[in-house]
């Protein structure tokens, strides 16, 4: 680690994502390394200068830069053939903003803001804010290995029913783009940093809703997001339980209303007195036995208990090996008659029943071991039509299966950002998780086609397996897609500018 940030070019040009579902040969591979010690305004500015230099060089060379985060996406969103890959994961400094850093017009909780460099992971952020500051994230995805910036850029969500996806808690964005644009984006109605500090970052302050909404979930198409400011909330505990529940009228009603309090909740689940509304609600359905009970997970918010021990340690334990999913997937391709049996066993093993586990947010949503040869898609639909959509998922699988997969329903509020896929008010996200079996990806496509045929509006998770051909992009995002493209035109006026931050097919259609 040196006194100043560094842009280091490394020899390796073979890229593959964390789950090994995608790979590419990149032309150049850079690591953005931070300066030693704590982040200062000067080190943030120096780091931005290095990235701007790289953008200049790429612009002159006609190259495309893909900013790389933790690499967790199933889709080929992180890298593409022959790009210049900028690995941001090393730059993981974070600063707590203090009242002296804030604009006089700031109206929120002055204790709750964290400025994160692009490589800051959810895990490290949880560890710091929970143990040092008595704060918590309001929502994340189910795992903690992603960077905050990478997760928001792909629209990562959880199932906190009162929250949007992760980008809904972002209040400022440092965006680096062509022509040495070092922009500090905020909303006009939500001022955050005082202009003097923004100037110390070398940034131009732009309080502009249009650019902010474009940058919140931008897939790396606008430039490199170098830092963000995230709102945290006072620390709390979650009490989690997973139990069986029929896919019946009560569950359907809970899906449509996001009110799971009326479910048949087992008596040994501790429901907080006076606060029966869960903070988190999801359930998983086994399409191989759709009449069997689903596995419902509820989490209740509890006040912080000063006697609670925050312990993030993982315990070594027996579990499936790294290659087992691939082996089972191949096996089932040859012996599909066994798919329901095997898939049902996996469903039961992966979704054990438990009661009243108490932990912080960071303890509850922790590390996920990578699994090769798995596949995942996530389709957002209006919650009001979520049971209708899930019925279509089940019927499509029944008609064209079997495939080794399961369906999980998660619920979030509508999320700001033109390209946020959790765009319905409120949203149900139906995950299709399974093995990378020959029948899994075709099944995902059959389900999308069935939704098209049924006229149910939907949008797809950018970071998971998706298919955005056939005009689906336009149907999903409508006027918001046009607004995103217009904002991109403002930042990247020429075709050569856009080339610097392009995505390979089929995502190319987003920007053009």
């Amino acid at each position, binding site marked *: 680690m040196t006194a100043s940030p560094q842009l280091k070019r490394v020899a390796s040009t073979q890229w593959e994502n964390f789950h090994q579902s995608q790979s590419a040969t990149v032309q150049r591979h850079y690591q953005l390394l931070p300066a030693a010690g704590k*982040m200062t305004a000067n080190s943030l500015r120096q780091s931005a200068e290095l990235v701007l230099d790289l953008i200049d060089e790429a612009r002159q060379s006609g190259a495309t830069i893909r900013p790389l985060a933790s690499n967790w996406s199933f889709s080929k969103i992180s890298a593409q053939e022959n790009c210049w890959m900028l690995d941001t994961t090393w730059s993981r400094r974070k600063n707590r903003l203090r009242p002296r850093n804030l604009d006089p017009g700031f109206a929120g909780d002055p204790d709750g803001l964290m400025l994160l460099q692009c490589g800051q992971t959810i895990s490290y952020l949880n560890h710091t804010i929970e143990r040092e500051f008595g704060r918590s994230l309001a929502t994340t995805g189910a795992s903690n290995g992603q960077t905050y910036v990478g997760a928001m850029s792909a629209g990562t969500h959880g199932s906190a029913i009162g929250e949007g996806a992760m980008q809904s808690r972002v209040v400022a964005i440092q965006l680096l783009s062509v022509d040495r644009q070092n922009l500090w984006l905020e909303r006009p109605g939500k001022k955050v940093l005082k202009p003097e500090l923004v100037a110390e970052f070398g940034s131009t302050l732009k309080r502009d809703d249009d650019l902010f909404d474009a940058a919140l979930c931008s897939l790396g198409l606008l430039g490199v997001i170098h830092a963000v400011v995230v709102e945290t909330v006072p620390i709390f505990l979650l009490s989690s339980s997973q139990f069986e529940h029929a896919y019946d009228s009560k569950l359907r009603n809970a899906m449509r209303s996001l009110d799971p309090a009326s479910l048949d909740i087992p008596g040994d689940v501790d429901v907080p007195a006076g606060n029966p509304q869960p903070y988190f609600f999801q359930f998983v359905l086994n399409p191989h036995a759709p009449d069997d009970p689903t596995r419902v997970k509820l989490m209740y918010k509890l006040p912080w208990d000063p006697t609670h021990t925050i312990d993030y340690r993982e315990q070594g334990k027996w579990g499936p090996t790294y290659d087992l999913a691939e082996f089972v997937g191949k096996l089932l391709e040859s012996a599909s008659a066994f798919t329901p049996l095997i898939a049902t066993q996996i469903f039961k093993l992966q979704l054990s029943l438990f009661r009243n586990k108490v932990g912080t947010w960071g303890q509850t949503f922790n590390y996920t*071991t990578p699994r090769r040869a798995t596949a995942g898609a996530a389709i957002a639909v209006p919650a009001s039509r979520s049971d209708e959509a899930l019925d279509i998922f089940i019927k499509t699988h029944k008609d064209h299966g079997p495939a080794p997969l399961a369906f999980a329903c998660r619920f979030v509020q509508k999320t700001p950002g033109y390209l946020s896929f959790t765009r319905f008010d409120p949203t149900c996200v139906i995950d299709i998780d399974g093995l990378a079996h020959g029948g899994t990806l075709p099944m995902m496509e059959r389900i999308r086609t069935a939704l098209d045929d049924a006229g149910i509006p939907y949008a797809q998770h950018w970071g998971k397996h998706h298919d955005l051909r056939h005009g689906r992009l336009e149907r999903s995002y409508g006027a918001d897609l046009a607004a995103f493209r217009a904002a991109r035109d403002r930042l990247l006026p020429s075709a050569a500018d856009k080339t610097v931050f392009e995505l390979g097919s089929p995502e190319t259609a987003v920007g053009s």
Partner: protein
Amino acid sequence: MKRQFVSVLLIPLLLGGCATTHVFRVQPPETVGLRQPAKVESYFGAVSKSADIDCNGNGIAEVYVKQSFWRSLLSTVTLGAYQDTQLRYLCHPGPNDGAGEFGEAPADEGRAARAPTDQGGSDDG
């Protein structure tokens, strides 16, 4: 007889053939960067070339050791004279050194927040 011998020789090769061994630190399971390839070569078990690993001064967080049928076969036909092991590694990001602040704190500001438990401090990675 010869065919049986070859078959017996091939069975363990095939069974052990293509598994990946995954080793990772239990706490904290944090990684940085891409899985980088590296190779360990050994001749006659006496001379070996170690893996060239670059983690920018940090340690390794995860290692994936890939067995393959062809490498096992190569080792077998050379009677163990040549062995190579392909591995891929992920670097550890280094300590989570907590959070900094911008600028000097005015006398009346201080650090308002307190740790919620007496554990405090930063994760030492």
